[in-house]
């Protein structure tokens, strides 16, 4: 039964999403339980998949064939094939654990927000669709299914942005929708060009064709597809919509939205490493430049912000810049050894970044829950009211800026080392960025937590929200203290899964 795990991991959240609106009619508590149950089930499936990948390599699953492994009856893949190796197992693990934390956090958070039961029903079903879209996007080995799930993620996240139903959130959702629609259409154009060349849609099969001879049209479709996915990840020149989105989304959802950018980065690296086999050329440098730009702009812009969420949004963009820096150097210098370290540093940083930014956004959500305000000027002296919140904030702050005892340090160090060998200037920008990051959060800490005790209405945080935040904080500490455990059996297999191109293709043909 368990060899259906990949298909079930996508099907269960979808099934739960459809049933939520029915179950919602029965009662709120049952519906929340149903959502959490389905996510726990998917989490177990993904953990089982991770374990199975580590033991016996790439796991392929043909949807709809007589038996799961009947992949290419006519010598080439005909059906949609889910191909899971170390990288997307890790990415889907990040997606599922952050969403599970967000949903448990949402249990009480939503009651404070709005009483309208149907509205929250739809919120949960859209959230489940969003998760299923992300998992689907990371599992597929097929271009068109990638397009379908990419579109599903952007439609459901645009709908979620308009949760608060006030003018600005519709605006932000509208802008976000335009950009993802155009991006998806460009992706479709790229797929069309590839299909016209090879008559195939499966990534690995096309990779085999491209290996032989990289024609002019392949370069065109490569540029189309890469620009489409870059639109979705949002490095600096294209990041306008992301900041509005993060500001308007309910706080726990922003953590989930960050993982959607991380999945986008995974898809980008999958295409560049495994399909188009572009090694050490121009595209590596493009990603590095975009990464450096987003670190620099993200950090400087967030210094000026007044609104807590906007500041966190810019910090999140800077964090994604780090990941792109790591993967870009991994790509540009793949042949040399430090390219491999850079790549594994980048992948480890996706894990750390998801945890750190997730924790920080949950804290902003807690502040919003307690005081109904997100502007820094009129917050102050919260430390007196809830010491644990400020302790959590300190942990998050130190982890994000990469200080030794926490997980940020490990991955950033790996990135700095390898980037330094490639080009010392980049490493300098990286280190500068994380120092500035520390400055930002210090400023926030002083203005929000210290100062005169906060007198206005301060609703006590429910235990469930605090528990979730403490679990993430402990996880960050654990990763910081014993990084080797995470590295050698999660990250290094992921890195070499990306690098060795033949293994990916071997899975199919």
């Amino acid at each position: 039964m368990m060899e259906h795990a990949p298909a079930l991991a996508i099907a269960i959240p979808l099934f739960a999403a459809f049933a939520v609106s029915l179950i919602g009619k029965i009662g709120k508590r049952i519906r929340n339980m149903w959502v959490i149950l389905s996510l726990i089930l998917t989490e177990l499936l993904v953990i089982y998949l991770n374990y199975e990948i580590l033991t016996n390599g790439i796991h392929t699953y043909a949807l709809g064939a007589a038996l799961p492994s009947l992949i290419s009856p006519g010598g080439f893949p005909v059906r949609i094939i889910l191909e899971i190796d170390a990288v997307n197992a890790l990415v889907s693990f990040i997606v599922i654990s952050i969403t599970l934390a967000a949903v448990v956090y949402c249990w009480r958070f939503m009651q404070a927000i709005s009483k309208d039961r149907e509205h929250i029903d739809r919120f949960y079903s859209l959230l489940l669709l969003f998760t299923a879209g992300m998992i689907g996007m990371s599992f597929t080995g097929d271009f068109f299914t990638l397009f379908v799930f990419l579109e599903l993620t952007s439609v459901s996240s645009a709908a979620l942005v308009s949760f608060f139903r006030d003018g600005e959130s519709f605006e932000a959702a509208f802008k976000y929708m335009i950009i993802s629609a155009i991006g998806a259409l460009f992706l479709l154009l790229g797929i069309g060009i590839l299909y016209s060349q090879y008559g195939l849609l499966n990534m690995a099969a096309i990779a085999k064709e491209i290996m032989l001879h990289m024609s002019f049209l392949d370069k065109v479709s490569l540029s189309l597809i890469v620009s489409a996915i870059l639109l979705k990840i949002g490095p600096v020149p294209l990041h306008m919509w992301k900041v509005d989105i993060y500001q308007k989304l309910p706080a726990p959802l922003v953590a989930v939205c960050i993982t959607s950018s991380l999945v986008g980065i995974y898809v980008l690296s999958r295409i560049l490493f495994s399909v188009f086999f572009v090694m050490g050329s121009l595209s590596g440098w493009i990603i590095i430049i975009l990464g450096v730009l987003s670190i620099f702009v993200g950090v400087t812009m967030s210094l000026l912000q007044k609104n807590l969420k906007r500041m966190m949004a810019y910090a999140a963009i800077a964090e994604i810049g780090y990941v792109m820096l790591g993967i870009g150097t991994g790509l540009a210098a793949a042949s040399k050894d430090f390219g491999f370290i850079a790549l594994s540093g980048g992948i480890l940083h996706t894990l750390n970044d998801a945890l750190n930014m997730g924790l920080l956004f949950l804290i902003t959500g807690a502040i919003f829950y307690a005081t109904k305000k997100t502007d820094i000027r009129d917050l102050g002296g919260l430390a007196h009211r809830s010491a644990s919140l400020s302790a959590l904030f300190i942990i998050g702050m130190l982890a994000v800026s990469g200080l030794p005892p926490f997980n940020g340090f490990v991955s950033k160090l790996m990135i700095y080392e390898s980037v330094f060998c490639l080009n010392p200037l980049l490493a300098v920008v990286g280190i500068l960025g994380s120092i500035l990051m520390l400055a930002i959060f210090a400023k926030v800490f002083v203005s929000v937590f210290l100062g005169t005790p906060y007198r206005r209405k301060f609703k006590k945080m429910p235990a469930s929200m605090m528990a979730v935040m403490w679990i993430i904080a402990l996880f960050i500490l654990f990763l910081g203290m014993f990084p080797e455990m995470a590295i050698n059996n999660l990250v290094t297999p992921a890195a070499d899964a990306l690098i060795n191109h033949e293994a990916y293709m071997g899975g199919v043909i």
Partner: protein
Amino acid sequence: MLLAAVLFVHPLGKPPRTEMDDYFILNGQAQTGCNNIVTSVVFDYRGMDTFGEATILFAAVAGIFMVLGEKNEKGQ
């Protein structure tokens, strides 16, 4: 400028590589039993695409409910 490349794709009538489609035409009927090969591709060979797309329609409807639905605060 990228769009101009669309012109060089290939002459309209003669797609160069059609093994996958020939596979569909030849044993589409045998494996799925539908006469209409397009439906067999849509539902059986590439069922996940149609499934994903039905969920997109569901997500769009849920999104529109959130945007345009009227606010009943009684939370029945």
